[in-house]
């Protein structure tokens, strides 16, 4: 694997990246209040007296938030801290009603763990382990709107108090691609675990990107933190732009300032946030409204037992037990919905064929990846809103497997299925697409083609055997694709011999 280097005037530079990912924990209610968390509600409707920090209001933690943080920690093989505690991070801002954020600085619920990323799907040697320093649970802030009034900003506290996990990586990434792969992989894991829906466009996952540059082998340079980057693509762009900016700055004789920056996707550049005075003295101390959080073994056991098969394990199983290619296994486990869809398709297909899953897995995987994905893509759809269900897909695969239709007819049938929502068998029946093994009809077609192409027959017999494919194609065409390819082959060979 070639190393990512920035070519500067003074030589090559290496970029060092760490990510702090804020992931909204999937729950019905907020971390410390019973208000709802649903996206897109009317302003300030999902706000309790607690979230608005009315005088005398007190926090009581939501068990599900704790549970999901623990499950996430387990999914990255992290240390789970049976004793943790909430701290207050004190600062003033209009989106922070309490004047402090309840977070976990000193004793986070999850300690060190790791995530493996693979930079090249087809190359198992491209795996790299990214260290996770910690995961802690904290409150989200509210939202300010600046464009509704000439002299005022508007505060909406619907998000205030929603539970977040902050997942802090080690500065282990060295290229935009690694940062992108890490974020994608993390998102995949969270979605498998079910602890975060990973909807970056709705803000349920966003990353603070820490970037520094150094000459290879040198000490870490001063880092900047680009806040709230909300897509994998943008994270990669931030790394690239910020690294270039820092190199140019240093080579121009400047120094990188440790600061908070914002990414402007329209201009594809980062810019310094107006530095907030006192921003660095958060006066963290244990929240005296809350007691230490002590987790018992039964709770941890339930968390562990309820974990699903995780992407890495699934991928290995697909390769070893199902015999899928590394590439296909990777594609199918890149997203929890894809894996779920595939496994449903596989189960239905195996049941219809009365065969073990391993025997039909390749066919199912290939069809899903090469046929269905492409067809859905054309329609601008995904598996989540696919008009074709796994059962319907299996019905189609069964028709191919038992010779009722050919692979090329199957493409047409799939198109009709997507268009009409009808079942494969019904479409084949209605459209008369059933493959024929009627030797009489096929023979007649072959005879016609051989007669019309006497010159090519001569050439074939003269040794140009590659022409065999031409005759097959012509025959299939004459049969409108419905001829059984095996029968066509057999008859052609006989006639041409």
């Amino acid at each position, binding site marked *: 694997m070639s190393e990512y280097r920035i070519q500067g005037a003074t030589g090559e530079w290496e970029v060092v990246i760490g990510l702090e990912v804020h992931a909204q924990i999937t729950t019905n209610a907020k971390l410390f209040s019973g208000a709802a968390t649903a996206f897109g509600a009317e302003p300030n409707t999902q706000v309790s007296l607690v979230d608005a920090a*009315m005088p*005398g209001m*007190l926090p*009581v933690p939501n068990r599900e938030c704790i549970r999901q943080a623990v499950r996430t920690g387990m999914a990255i093989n992290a240390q789970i801290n049976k004793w943790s505690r909430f701290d207050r991070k004190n600062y003033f*801002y209009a989106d922070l009603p*309490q004047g402090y954020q309840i977070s976990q600085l000193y004793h986070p619920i999850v300690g060190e763990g790791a995530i493996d990323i693979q930079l090249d799907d087809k190359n198992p040697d491209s795996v790299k382990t990214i260290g996770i320093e910690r995961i802690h649970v904290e409150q989200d802030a509210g939202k300010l709107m600046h464009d509704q009034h000439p002299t005022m900003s508007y505060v909406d506290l619907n998000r205030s108090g929603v539970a977040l996990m902050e997942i802090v990586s080690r500065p282990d990434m060295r290229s935009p691609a690694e940062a992108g792969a890490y974020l994608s992989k993390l998102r995949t894991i969270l979605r498998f675990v079910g602890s975060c829906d990973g909807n970056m466009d709705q803000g349920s996952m966003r990353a603070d990107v820490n970037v520094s540059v150094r000459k290879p082998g040198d000490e870490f340079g001063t880092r900047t933190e680009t806040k709230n980057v909300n897509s994998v693509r943008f994270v990669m762009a931030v790394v690239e732009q910020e690294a270039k900016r820092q190199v140019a700055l240093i080579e121009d004789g400047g120094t990188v300032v440790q600061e908070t920056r914002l990414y402007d996707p329209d201009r594809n550049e980062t810019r310094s946030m107006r530095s907030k005075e006192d921003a660095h003295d958060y*006066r*963290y101390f244990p929240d*005296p*409204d809350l007691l230490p959080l002590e987790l018992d073994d039964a709770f941890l056991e339930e968390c562990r037992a309820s974990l699903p098969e995780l992407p890495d394990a699934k991928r290995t199983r697909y390769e070893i037990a199902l015999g899928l290619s590394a590439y296909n296994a990777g594609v199918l486990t890149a997203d929890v919905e894809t894996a779920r869809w595939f496994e449903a398709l596989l189960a239905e297909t195996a049941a219809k064929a009365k065969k073990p899953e391993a025997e039909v897995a390749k066919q199912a995987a290939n069809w899903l990846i090469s046929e269905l994905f492409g067809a859905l893509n054309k329609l601008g759809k995904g598996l989540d809103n696919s008009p074709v269900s796994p059962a319907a897909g299996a019905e189609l695969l069964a028709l191919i497997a038992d010779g009722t239709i050919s692979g090329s007819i199957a493409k047409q049938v799939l198109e009709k299925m997507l268009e009409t929502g009808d079942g494969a068998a019904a479409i084949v029946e209605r459209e008369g697409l059933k493959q024929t093994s009627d030797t009489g009809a096929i023979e007649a077609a072959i005879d016609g083609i051989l007669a019309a192409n006497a010159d090519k027959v001569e050439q074939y017999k003269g040794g140009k055997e590659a022409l065999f494919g031409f005759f097959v194609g012509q025959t299939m065409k004459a049969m409108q694709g419905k001829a059984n390819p095996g029968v066509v082959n057999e008859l052609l060979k006989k006639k041409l011999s």
Partner: protein
Amino acid sequence: MTQLTDLGIAAIRDGVAKGDFTATEVATAFNAAVAAAQPALNAFIVTTPEKALEAAAKVDADRAAGKALGTMAGVPIGMKDLFATHGTQTTAASKILEGFKPQYESTVSQKLWDAGAGMLGKLNLDQFAMGSSNETSAFGNVISPWRRPNDTAPLAPGGSSGGSSSAVAARIAPAATGTDTGGSIRQPAAFTGISGIKPTYGRCSRWGVVAFASSLDQAGPMARDVTDCAIMLEAMAGFDPKDSTSLNLSVPEWTAGLNADMKGKKVGIPREYRLDGMDADVAKSWDDGIAWLKDAGAEIVEISLPHTKYALPTYYIIAPAEASSNLARYDGVRYGLRDLPDGAGLQDMYAATRAAGFGPEVKRRIMIGTYVLSAGFYDAYYTQAQKVRTLIARDFTEAFQQVDVILVPTAPSSAFALGEKSADPLEMYLNDVFSVPASLAGLPAMSVPAGLDRNGLPLGLQVIGKAFDEQGVLNASLALEQRAQFSARPAKWW
């Protein structure tokens, strides 16, 4: 005939239940007493005679209908203005909350209304409960009904529950709620010759009580005597799932369990409380208390609480630290005062609002708290204080292996005059020297009147008990009460 306003909780409740008088008559009498005393004592920030009458009418109707009556039925009380009351202004005696009408009711006040109590009004206090003399209120000083002989100088009713103590002592409320962070129930009770108990931390829900220092704040009753305190504490206490620090325990029947017989009980006398230069009258009243408990059958045991002298400085790190954070929510965005100078940005608005809204003592404590939590100082101050706090609590734990309760004075002196100590914050803080240790350890502690000093002013004795043992505290206090025979009351000058 005895005036209705001379009656306490038990007498009112029983009289109403028996039909000796109606709850409405009681409420009317206290409303009138409140109105008459308000200009002189300033015990209330707002009065709510209609609320008192409304609750009384319901009790009278329930009685007429033969329904069961609550344990506080027909008793109109004063509510410290730190408890959020639905639709009634709640200020914590600060300008920053002037006009704030909560859309919710604190758990403790709700429990009292559910028990049949009514509200005479919201009682004045030290601003955000920060003070020992009720001189930090934004709504004026509360004046104690007590005066020195031949002296009209206004005296402090104690603090922070100074409105509560003044009102109960002046017989314009039979009882009142208080809150105690470092002595704010016990010290004002001692200054005004009434009783007050701070229960074990977590007994009374803090939900809906304006926070001062979360790890210390506890609500409790202030009333004429130990029995009334027991009745009212039973009504106030109880598990609240909305407060993470609430104790998930059922409320004992403290009133039924009252027993002044101290036979077989050991009473600890900590030598560290006998300070050099201790006020002679305070020392004498402590000795009286020791003799009374001995008379009640208790064995007196000298004990040691070695870290006592560090309690006050520990308190004055932890309480301001928590307060500096708890009071950050008063920012002019969602409720309360907003001071928005021309052209001011958000952060300017915060600074202007908080400068205009908080009084000097509140600002002082926020400043101290901010400083001790700030980068570079956190461990030296806050962490160290929390470690010393562990040692202070451990001192008590060890002492309670030997004794059942501890007897100490409530305060180092009787009531001082307004203005006498307000110039020097440190001197004021020293007033909490005997009350703060139990607060830091979260223990139940009660002050009962012990007698009058050379100036004819009340002195209090404090009983500190084991965690959860309010009963032991109430019983020892009852033994003291029976022997102290405290019957003095302030002459009505207002």
